[in-house]
């Protein structure tokens, strides 16, 4: 059996997953980061995107936003504002959110609303990607 490491994905509202996995790929701010067991200790910020997890030879995806990851002693801890596994994602809602954000961006404007719409768009895209659409 392949070596495993512990993966915890935690959001302020709940613990999304806590299990033994083989391989994790996280969307770091400076490019994707892959973690195998025994990875050197590391802390990194993450961007909104898709986290891939390999467990028992199967891969599943988790859409995350606004978080960071800590790796230590074969333990990967992901702290994120939101995190949903691919089977928990509400595709319709994500699509609606994407459309809304796009409209808002197309309308133009400035300041915080634009930044917010941009962030919302990123989140929606990440969710759709994780859900495989």
């Amino acid at each position, binding site marked *: 059996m392949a070596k495993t490491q512990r993966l*915890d994905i935690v959001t302020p509202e709940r613990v999304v997953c806590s299990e033994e996995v083989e391989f994790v790929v996280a969307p770091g701010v*400076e490019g994707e980061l892959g973690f195998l067991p025994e990875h050197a200790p590391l802390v990194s910020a993450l961007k909104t995107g898709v986290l891939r997890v390999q467990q028992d030879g199967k891969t599943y995806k988790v859409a995350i936003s606004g978080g960071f990851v800590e790796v230590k002693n074969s333990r990967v801890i992901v702290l994120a504002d939101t995190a949903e596994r691919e089977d928990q994602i509400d595709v319709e809602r994500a699509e609606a959110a994407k459309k809304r954000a796009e409209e808002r961006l197309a309308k133009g404007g400035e300041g915080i609303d634009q930044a917010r719409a941009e962030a919302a768009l990123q989140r929606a895209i990440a969710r759709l990607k994780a859900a495989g659409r």
Partner: protein
Amino acid sequence: MASARDIRRRIKSVKSTQQITKAMKMVAAAKMRRAQEAVTAARPYATKLTDVLGRVSAAAGGSVSHPLLEVREPQKTAYIIITADRGLCGGFNANVIRRAAKELQQYENPALITIGRKGRDFFKRRGAEIAAEFINLGENITFGKAKEIARFVIDKYTAGEYDQVYLIFSEFVNTLTQRPTTVKLLPIEAPAEEKKEGAEDKKAQVSYMYEPNAESVLGELLPKYVEVSIFRALLEAKAGEHGARMTAMDSATNNAKEMIHKLTLSLNRARQAAITKEISEIVGGAAALE
């Protein structure tokens, strides 16, 4: 003495009040359970975040400067005051407000950020300066709400409008006890690192890699820490509100029960008096005929 009819009417009204308080108590109990679960669910995140933050700030060696760590001479102080939107929960709101009113005297002209209708109404009546208000947070408190509030204070703090920010909320000790608490939110006092894990762990910290670097990771973590602190306070206040309401409604129900008991006694007495009076009238009437 009140007539039997009046007393009967009284009993009826107390009974219906009792039904209401009983229902409210049960609703509050159910909601409190849910709110408590939310508090528990939020704990792992907060613990881990504090953990990582402690390590990162230790690794960064206190030399990092970040706007949220900057300590300034307090010219303007802001208070975030968390109360409930609704009343009928015993001393819950009053306790927080009393605490807040006391704290506010320490500084000249503090800015207030009120969360919940009760706190807002109280301080508005007193003519205090309310910088922002958040009401109707609803039953399910989302992290997004906490983020919104955090963003507001962080912006003000970074802009130099506030020099320190305190958070006053009701800590949920247990169902019966909620303790008003004051927490310093900004500037952030980096959580002390836990030392219990021993020397081996210490070695591990030193060799942490930071991507892209410790400063930017710290910059990412600090606002999160503020958000989580606010989020936790909101959840605890919510659980406390329901706990307080449950206790208040429980004692209201008991009082109603006692009152009904007393009223029933006086009803019987009144009835008995009426009967006695009637008999003595008849006897008196009969005696007069003889």
